[in-house]
């Protein structure tokens, strides 16, 4: 875990300690910086295009006419300048256009986002978003969605119409308090309302053209798809590749068309021109990509600083924002997120912990998508007049303390229990109920008051050990799932496990979990594991870390998928991942996973404790 430096005393030793601590000043300054950089970026982008064209032109002309004139610098004719300007403007417009194509839908698809449901914590998120819209003066339309990942991060995108999408990961929903979530959401809203999100989308796409061209030239038949996370990204690879080919074809055409005058054999000249142009282009595109990248990253960093300042103006709660950044930065940010590097700027904090934004210094100043985490926290703490050390206690306390939760094994599916619980419903005590009846009550929830008998002190259900287990981890819904166990063929019972409905076999205690459910179960840390599970998990972990080749295996499973017609379609038996070598049976058709007894909890234990 990172250590935060204590509050810097005013002095030149740390550059950013001299930063103005007023959010309005920061906002004004960064807005100015963003506008200048944005204009400069467009200018430089077109200028570079022009220069590269000029370079190619000079190479071609000099080779063709060396025998006539010797080495001469050819400036472009007016006609050429107009052509180049036209092409570069069209290219810019096209990339901007493609960048703006339904960014909301793309984010939803790539991150498998889902709309908010009726559960109380997601309703709170909905309320928070409404509040933040009020704080912006009712500007902007924003929608909240949940990303099914256990990492802690938030992102925002907006489209041309100004509609915004604020996506919060399961992990962040779980671990941030209301105030912290509000501050982080305000940061993202600031991003949308100020129009920076739209600018950033364009910046991150339009100005990666040079690096894409460079990559395209280096790997002549580029497999761009594999480079960009899960393949999809803003803009269109197809579009960029066509541009590249079109341009190269143009060069070829030009060089083939001219060579008659020189009287030198056509073929060698042609090859020299191609080779030299090619080398020149590779170098030029590389340099151009660095220049534009440096500028785009500077814009991205300014936007983050500005959004922090605007969020503070909106909520007047810099401390919570600092806490949110701290918790996200020093917890798990989520290398599991399916992100290509083009997505990094839209996140609240950079999704991979080792990148530049954690560091300070020249490289980070040039290439970081976000300002250093420490700088952001220190600025906010200074605004809030809070000592940084107060934040350091935040992370170890993150894990929720749940008094007692049985493992899945402990769920007794048919146990008759004593009817002793009364519940308070609409100001009347009802009951007595036994545990199973209690679980079946539609109104039963953790904040509900219960008592054992009329003399007992009313307590919240969540405060009673036996009952809290029901909510936090395992709740038996009793009805069957309509599917049968792949190994012992009994009907699976529906159980609510960490808020997700999963199927449990009462015979072999195996569990069937669907894909989204598994992600959420791994995201939440509500179950407390029994000693047996811990021992088993540690044994598995130490075994697998000794045997490297053992880590990932895959073969056909003897079990058929319970939902996609038994026995005909076999599942795949494989390790959950190379990092977490728990054997699972996975159906590639419906995405469901079958865990034998204890396997789900072992996987959770390894995952939550990052044993890999």
């Amino acid at each position, binding site marked *: 875990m990172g250590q935060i430096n204590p509050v810097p005393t005013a002095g030149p030793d740390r550059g950013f300690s001299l930063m103005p601590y007023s959010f309005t000043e920061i906002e004004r300054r960064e807005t100015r910086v963003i506008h200048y950089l944005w204009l400069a970026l467009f200018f430089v982008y077109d200028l570079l295009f022009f220069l590269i064209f000029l370079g190619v032109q000079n190479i071609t002309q000099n080779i063709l006419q060396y025998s006539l004139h010797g080495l001469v610098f050819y400036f472009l004719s007016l006609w050429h300048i107009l052509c180049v300007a036209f092409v570069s403007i069209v290219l810019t417009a096209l990339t901007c256009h493609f960048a703006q194509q339904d960014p909301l839908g793309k984010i939803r698809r790539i991150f498998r986002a889902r709309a908010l449901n009726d559960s109380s914590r997601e309703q709170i998120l909905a309320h928070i978003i409404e509040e933040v819209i*009020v704080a912006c*003066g009712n500007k902007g339309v924003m929608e909240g969605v949940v990303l099914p990942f256990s990492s802690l991060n938030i992102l925002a995108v907006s489209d041309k119409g100004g509609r915004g999408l604020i996506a919060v990961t399961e992990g962040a929903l779980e671990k941030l308090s209301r105030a912290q979530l509000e501050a982080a959401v305000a940061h993202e809203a600031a991003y949308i309302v100020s129009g920076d999100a739209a600018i950033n989308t364009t910046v991150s796409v339009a100005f990666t053209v040079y690096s894409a061209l460079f990559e395209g030239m280096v790997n002549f038949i580029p497999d761009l798809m594999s480079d960009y996370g899960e393949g999809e990204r803003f803009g269109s690879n197809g579009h960029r590749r066509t541009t590249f080919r079109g341009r190269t074809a143009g060069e070829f055409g030009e060089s083939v068309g001219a060579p008659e005058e020189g009287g030198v054999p056509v073929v060698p000249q042609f090859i020299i021109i191609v080779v030299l142009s090619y080398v020149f282009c590779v170098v030029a595109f590389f340099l151009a990509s660095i220049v534009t990248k440096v500028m785009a990253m500077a814009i991205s960093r300014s936007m983050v600083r500005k959004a922090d300042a605007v969020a503070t103006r909106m909520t007047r709660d810099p401390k919570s924002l600092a806490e949110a950044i701290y918790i996200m930065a020093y917890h798990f940010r989520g290398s599991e997120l399916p992100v290509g590097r083009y997505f990094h700027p839209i996140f609240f904090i950079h999704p991979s912990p080792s990148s530049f934004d954690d560091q300070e210094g020249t490289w980070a100043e040039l290439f970081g998508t976000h300002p250093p985490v420490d700088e952001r926290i220190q600025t906010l703490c200074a605004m809030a007049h809070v000592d940084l050390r107060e934040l350091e206690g935040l992370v170890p306390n993150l894990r929720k303390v749940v008094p007692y939760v049985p493992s899945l094994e402990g769920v007794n599916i048919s146990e008759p229990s004593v009817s002793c619980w009364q519940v308070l419903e609409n100001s009347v005590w009802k009951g007595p109920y036994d545990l199973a009846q209690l679980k079946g009550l539609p109104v039963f929830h953790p904040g509900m008051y219960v008592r054992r008998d009329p003399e007992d002190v009313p307590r919240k259900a969540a405060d009673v050990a036996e009952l809290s287990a029901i909510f936090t981890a395992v709740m038996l819904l009793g009805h069957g799932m309509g599917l049968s166990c792949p190994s012992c063929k009994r009907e699976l019972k529906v159980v609510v496990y960490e808020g997700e409905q999963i199927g449990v076999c009462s015979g072999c205690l195996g569990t069937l979990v669907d894909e989204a459910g598994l992600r959420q179960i791994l995201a939440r840390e509500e179950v407390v594991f029994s000693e047996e599970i811990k021992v088993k998990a540690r044994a598995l972990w130490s075994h697998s870390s000794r045997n490297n080749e053992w880590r990932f295996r895959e073969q056909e499973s003897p079990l058929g998928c319970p939902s996609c017609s038994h026995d005909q379609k076999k599942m795949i038996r494989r390790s959950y991942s190379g990092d977490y070598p728990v054997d699972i049976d996975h159906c590639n058709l419906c995405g469901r996973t079958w865990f034998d007894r204890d396997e789900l909890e072992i996987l959770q234990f390894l995952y939550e404790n990052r044993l890999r």
Partner: protein
Amino acid sequence: MIALWIILGVIVLIVLMVIGIYNSLVQMRVGVQNAWSQIDVQLKRRHDLIPNLVETAKGYITHERGTLEAVIKARQMAVDASGIKDKLAAENMLTSTLRSLFAVSENYPNLKADQTMMRLMEELTTTENKIGFSRQFYNDEVGRYNASLQVFPNNMIAGQFSFKAADFFQLEDAAERKAPEVKF
């Protein structure tokens, strides 16, 4: 002749400047009014929530009925109030009576456990936050507007066309700044 043109030019320039400043002041004033109406929307929402809240609480609170009546009275006053100054006083009154209601309800665990009450409390929390945010937004707008009334040459035009400084929506004391905290 040239002097005439110059004078004419200067006059045209001044007229254009006056029009520009006048329009920007009007826009800011509209912004302030808009921001105020946003607070009004949220305050109305709070007024609508309170009868339900009191109704639910009535079933549980047996001893300190006075608190409930005070809330109802304060709400009525807030609904009836007109003009920013009166409204301010009434709303501050309502906030303090609500706070005492929350304090009283601490003694009634059954009340706190009630489903309807919990939902109402979350609604009230978010409404209180929205009131806070819209008030802050209003104050920011008022601050911008008032500042622009005082700078030269806006102050001359503002005086001529009777633009008046807007009132801030202030709370009586710093301790009041915290919205009633709903804790379970």
